[in-house]
């Protein structure tokens, strides 16, 4: 029972990272109607940037987070302007291939800059030692132990979950309660009509890429804090899984990405723990296939009625 709880928490944490990445996929898909397969590699760039800021510049981790987010924002906007914008009228297959090309470009650039060797990602954030709830919860060595030491949870796990919740709340408020958020929803529903209402569609798409990429930077740091090995291909697998999560939840839907990411993380962790550690990844993709078989639009995806 305790181990199940512990696996669930780990799954929730992994799923939170997937959810944050999936948000980037789903927002870009919703607004630019394209699959940005380079999104996973933006995660990797974000992780490398924060690594450099902490390791070489020896600045505090908070600054590393902010700088990584800023760099990824700019990177996201530049990628969209240079690679995707000229193809906005092109068939979606061309855009897809371009996105895969950008993905390899980023991976190989990272290899050129930082080398192919594994970098050990530094410890970024640690919880302070403390005793909470009348001594029932101990925090020491960045580990939280509860239930008389029977349940131990890593500080990173908790931090990841909290970050994810904060991001989800903030993003939901942004999308629903601000002018730019409304413009984004408008563009995702009908780009032409939004333009005719005076919405700057290019700016809206840029903002979407900027937000998605900034979230990717956050995800990169969280991911590498939990699995502290950094390679030019670090972002590839989480990127693909987050894409799976976005499709699982219903691509284009923001709540869908959140739900899909978290469910996928839990399924992967429980599958690894109880069925087979080697087949953990296979579970993830099996889920995708099953969902697509029975509900092609994903869990929260909307059916699009084509007018004839």
């Amino acid at each position, binding site marked *: 029972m305790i181990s199940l709880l512990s696996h669930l928490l780990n799954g929730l944490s992994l799923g939170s990272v997937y959810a944050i990445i999936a948000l980037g996929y789903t927002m870009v898909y919703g607004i630019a109607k394209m699959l940005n397969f380079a999104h996973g590699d933006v995660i990797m760039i974000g992780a490398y940037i924060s690594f450099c800021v902490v390791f070489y510049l020896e600045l505090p981790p908070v600054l590393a987070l902010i700088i990584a987010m800023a760099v990824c924002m700019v990177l996201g906007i530049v990628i969209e302007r240079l690679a995707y914008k000229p193809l906005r009228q092109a068939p979606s297959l061309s855009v897809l291939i371009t996105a895969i090309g950008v993905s390899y470009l980023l991976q190989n650039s990272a290899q050129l800059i930082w080398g192919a060797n594994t970098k050990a990602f530094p410890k970024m954030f640690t919880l302070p030692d403390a005793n909470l709830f009348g001594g029932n919860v101990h925090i020491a060595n960045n580990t939280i132990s509860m239930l008389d030491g029977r349940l131990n949870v890593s500080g990173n796990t908790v931090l990841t979950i909290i970050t994810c919740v904060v991001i989800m709340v903030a993003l939901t408020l942004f999308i629903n309660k*601000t*002018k730019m958020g409304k413009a984004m929803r408008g563009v995702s529903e009908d780009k032409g009509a939004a333009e005719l209402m005076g919405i700057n569609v290019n700016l809206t798409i840029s903002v979407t890429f900027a937000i998605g990429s900034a979230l990717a930077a956050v995800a990169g740091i969280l991911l590498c804090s939990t699995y502290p090995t950094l390679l030019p291909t670090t972002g590839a697998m989480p990127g693909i899984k987050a894409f799976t999560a976005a499709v699982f939840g219903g691509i284009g839907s923001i709540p869908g990405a959140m739900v899909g990411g978290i469910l996928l993380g839990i399924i992967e962790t429980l599958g690894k723990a109880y069925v087979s550690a080697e087949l953990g990844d296979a579970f993830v993709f099996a889920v995708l296939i099953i969902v697509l078989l029975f509900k092609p639009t994903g869990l929260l995806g909307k059916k699009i009625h084509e007018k004839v």
Partner: protein
Amino acid sequence: MSQNMKKRLLDTKMVPVPSISIVPERDVNKRPVLETRHLGIEFGGLKAVEDFNITVGPTEICGLIGPNGAGKTTVFNLLTKVYQPTTGTVLINGKDTSGMTTEQANRMGIARTFQNIRLFSNMSVEDNVRIGLHNQIPYSMLSGILRLPSYWKAEKKQHEKALELLSIFGMQDMADVKAGSLPYGAQRRLEIVRALATNPSLLLLDEPAAGMNPHETEELMRNIIKIRDDFQIAVMLIEHDMNLVMGICEGICVLNYGRIIAKGTPEEIQQNPVVIEAYLGSQNKEGDK
């Protein structure tokens, strides 16, 4: 007009485009809200619109009519920069809009509705109007993220303005309803409100009465006049309902095969044999509806 004269006009394919402007008298000495000069567009050799010249006064209600496929919606798409013209220019409030994007043309003061309703149907009625208000009540993205006082102030102003605009059509009680679940007539009205929210000086209505019953159409006519009077803007409309066109338009422009075949007041248009021939067919037929 004698039968003889009518026959002669048809035989020689003479196109009587009045040289005088159709701008109503009160607007004659004011700067026109819209002026097009030799506007035209080609689609792969097909001239969809050719040599389209029109002047619209600042408070004029003018109609654009013509058979199906005459190029009416194409003209709207040219005016709103959805298409870039291959020839000619569009001037909005005296300013040349060449090379502008759709969004810039909207900011210049041109707003439109659509033949097939294109609301943001998954958003609430109020949010649809608020998207129209996007450029009218601005605040920076930073103040939106940080929830600065300017954000709350602007959001409150937007909410009030949206309700005020909705109240033109008595729709303020439906503000929270999803736009896609509104009845058809209400969706058409909401499109007009959303276009008005962008603070246009020229409102383009593409078949505003399509699918409306005579009672609704009559109400729409009253409302178009009310909008013109209250907002002091020009309205240009495409419509097949001749009661509406002849009832409220001060100037009418008839398009056929992408060319203007007649311009004039409703009375002139109704008597113009070229129009009767091209548009209404023979007189005992109902015409193109």
